[in-house]
């Protein structure tokens, strides 16, 4: 089959690779009908995630048709159209039973590697490094889905692929970010980053009862999308001081909760290496740790800082004193996608939200290498790329 394979920094190619096969009784094989490039795929593209290997198949936002089933998968049949959560979960461990699906104890075959880095392993992910499982991703014609009796969610008739594809990651990720803010009537939510996750966090904040959403970015087309799709007031951080502007816009109170939908890239296998590379990054002027610092400083007293953006290693110069003095709450983590699928599928079915509105580019899978470069460099107003094999 054809698949998008990683070959090194800024080097992804369409390769011919062997088709996946059923390895375990709870596996399924999905024929991919639509797949997207995620902002977090750029961490891989930029070679910032450790334990990538040449030839790794990327992609964790994908959906398709069931073509083969292991003997223990009873709830699906061939021909079913499904969306597949990017987090792989067994459904039976302590964490899955508590709906903390992205913390599944059992789905990462390389748990030992993750334990070295984090003390414990999170769940395995599709196409997201060997540290997180080494599972082949979905930017391919076919993909093997482990624990298929737990993850894949059937798509109701009448919904198009592009309407439901983002249920695999970015819509639930934005939703969880907003839910983590414990939104109360009258709340103002500030969202850093107007990429796809930020945009869904804005929509979700309103779904959960926010009074106002304020979005922060610097790209005009993204700020425009935040206004149109996210219903947000916007701040261009290149033009004004974010902290004082937020304070003024909220009558001196500060936003009730702050969402960092930017995150920071991971930089190495060992903690000290991560630290060193983090320092290196700071010298070349990345503004990413800056977002979290700004969110902490801007948030109102007793508010929540919610981090859907991915952090990988260590942070330098975190204003923990401000966080402590203001009694802030921090909520973070990979998304418990399975938890949100029924609710969010229903919101799409009822027409409350049309996720396809954020798609700026639709290309065949064969154009994926060019699409990665475009998405990375944010050329041609690129916000979200959907590909069809």
């Amino acid at each position: 089959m054809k698949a998008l394979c990683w070959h090194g920094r800024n080097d992804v190619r369409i390769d011919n690779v062997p088709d996946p096969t059923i390895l375990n009784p709870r596996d399924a094989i999905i024929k991919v009908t639509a797949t997207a490039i995620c902002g977090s795929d750029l961490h891989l593209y930029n070679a910032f995630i450790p334990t990538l290997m040449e030839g790794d198949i990327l992609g964790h936002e994908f959906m398709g048709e069931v073509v083969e089933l292991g003997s223990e998968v009873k709830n699906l049949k061939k021909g079913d159209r499904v969306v597949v959560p990017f987090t792989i979960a067994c459904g039976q461990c302590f964490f899955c039973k508590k709906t903390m699906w992205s913390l599944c104890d059992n789905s990462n075959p390389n748990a030992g590697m993750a334990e070295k880095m984090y003390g414990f392993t999170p769940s395995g992910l599709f196409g997201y490094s060997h540290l997180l499982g080494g599972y082949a991703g979905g930017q391919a014609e076919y993909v093997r889905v482990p624990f298929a009796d737990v993850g894949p969610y059937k798509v109701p008739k009448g919904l198009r692929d592009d309407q439901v594809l983002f249920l695999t990651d970015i819509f639930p990720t934005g939703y969880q970010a907003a839910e983590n803010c414990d939104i109360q009537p009258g709340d103002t939510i500030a969202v850093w980053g107007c990429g796809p996750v930020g945009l869904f966090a804005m929509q979700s904040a309103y779904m959960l009862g926010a009074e106002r959403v304020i979005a922060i970015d610097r790209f005009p087309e993204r700020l425009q999308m935040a206004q149109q799709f996210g219903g947000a007031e916007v701040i261009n951080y290149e033009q004004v001081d974010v902290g004082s502007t937020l304070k003024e816009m909220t009558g001196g109170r500060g936003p009730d909760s702050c969402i960092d939908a930017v995150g920071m890239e991971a930089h190495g296998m060992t903690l000290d290496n991560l630290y060193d590379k983090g320092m290196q990054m700071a010298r070349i002027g990345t503004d990413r740790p800056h977002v979290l610092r700004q969110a902490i400083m801007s948030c109102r007293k007793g508010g929540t800082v919610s981090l859907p953006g991915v952090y990988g290693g260590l942070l330098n110069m975190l204003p923990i004193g401000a966080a402590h003095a203001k009694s802030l709450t921090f909520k973070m983590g990979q998304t418990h996608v399975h938890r949100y699928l029924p609710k969010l599928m229903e919101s799409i079915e009822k027409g409350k939200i049309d996720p396809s509105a954020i798609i700026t580019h639709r290309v065949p899978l064969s154009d994926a290498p060019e699409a990665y470069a475009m998405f990375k460099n944010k050329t041609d107003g690129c916000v979200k790329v959907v590909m069809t094999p």
Partner: protein
Amino acid sequence: MSDTLFRQEAAEALQRKSAEHQARQASAENGTGGDTNVGGIERLISVTSGSALILYGLSRRSAGGLALASVGGGLLLRGATGHCHVYSKLKISTSDASSKETRGIHIEKSITIGKSPEEVYQFWRNLSNLPRFMDHLKAVDVISETTSHWVAKAPMGGNISWDAEIIVDEPNARIAWRSLPDSDIENAGSVRFVEAPGGRGCEVHVTVQYYPPAGVLGATIAKLFGEEPSIQITDDLRRLKRLLETGEIPTTEGQPHG
């Protein structure tokens, strides 16, 4: 290394050991000795693996390869002279059977499995289940209610085997075993099954004590070849948990990766 070969070497080594013992006693008496602190089999393994590491290291043509080759050189010297500076610093000698306590490896590991102590105990008590999650085991044949024959993979592609007996069997709570005399690898262990609080299932506490063929160095070599016992037991317990909780062990073996 085949079983027979191993036994043959062991027998030869015992002869050498006895000779060394006499020599050392003699040298201790005339106040000159204490140089040989590495046992017979271990010296043989030092020489063989040292040479192998030198060849492998040099063939890598890299800094890491050079480092391996120099480790190999050290091992070769150690095997040839029977003297190990590390052992000497640590006051360890494996050239005498009386030093068994110092060369043993002791490992304690635990994991929580979302099943009742009864279920986990029963799975474990059927010893033929062990190779399903203990990666280094090829087979465990149950011989009687308390005795069994174990076959394990050894470093560098060989086999080692031993007979074991169960010495404690408290249903749903504890199993303890030890190898029978004349085993390739002397070992003993116990596993306790304790109910975890708040319905979290069963805590499995494993203790293993064993005396690898080449003492502390054996573990070092095993580590180089990815069969380090402590990591091995951690991985084994994780596989057990996964097998019991999900019915399968997650893998990506044998297909494209990502």
